[in-house]
């Protein structure tokens, strides 16, 4: 019984730390990401789209959506120049990464929104796996 009480104390301390981290940790994940998400079916209805591949350089080299530009957090400073050269502000920007579990696309989309004020930006739900599933690209390479 004493152990259970002690465990409860640890859980309470942990909970407090978790709440503080949620508001103060610089890398704390967002609680709501759905507002950026878009289904592939919806993207296919866009007249045009500017595609961003947020996966690693290695994955991009193995295969990527035709016309997609590589932009990831690891090489942000170098790749952002290419992005600015190629970016079409009139077309919606759609970011994808490897799968639904991957958060890199959200990070890239949030950063483009915050740093460059890109408003018309979406994250592809399901990412590369979804593109492979409907055979827009060949095979999920993750």
């Amino acid at each position, binding site marked *: 019984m*004493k*152990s*259970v*009480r*002690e*465990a*409860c*104390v*640890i*859980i309470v*301390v*942990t*909970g407090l*730390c*978790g709440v503080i*981290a*949620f508001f103060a*940790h610089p*890398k*704390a*994940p*967002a*609680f709501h*990401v759905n507002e950026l998400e878009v289904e592939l079916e919806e993207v296919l209805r866009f007249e045009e789209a500017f595609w961003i591949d947020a996966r690693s350089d290695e994955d991009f080299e193995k295969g990527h959506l035709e016309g997609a530009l590589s932009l990831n957090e690891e090489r942000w400073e170098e790749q952002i120049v290419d992005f600015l050269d190629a970016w079409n502000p009139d077309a919606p920007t759609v970011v994808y990464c490897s*799968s*639904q*579990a*991957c*958060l*890199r696309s959200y*990070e890239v989309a949030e950063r483009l929104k915050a740093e460059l004020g890109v408003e018309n930006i979406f994250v592809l739900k399901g990412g590369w796996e979804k593109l492979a599933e409907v055979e827009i690209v060949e095979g999920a390479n*993750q």
Partner: protein
Amino acid sequence: MRRLGQFVEIIVGAAFLWSGIAKLLDPSAFLSAILTYEVFSYKVSVIASLGVPYLELCVGACLVFRVIIGGARLLAVVLLVLFIILLSQAAMRGLDVDCGCFGSSKKSSEAGFFWPIARDVIMLVGIGLGIVAGVNANGNREK
């Protein structure tokens, strides 16, 4: 026996500390790892991505510094059993998961599930040894 139990528990505690710190350095990477298990919803995973590292830190610190040891042992057992269940279900479902055991790492389909599960079982045995040694020491003292 008592000293051996304490020593093993300190090692397990240090592993928990290391694991908690690695996860806290990049909670988003750990969140990605949790999502690959396809068990929890996104919101539950966000809570876990911030809660589990601190829980591991607290449990690890208690085991290393020998404070509120009973609660720390109980939570260590609960955490390790949970990790073993999560890894086992992922292995049985043939999922391509990122273990996330010490922050983000390789996908387990590449690295294999055996070592992460074996590591958790070894840590569980370590805690068991600490409990048995503690009980024996208390028994001897009462005699």
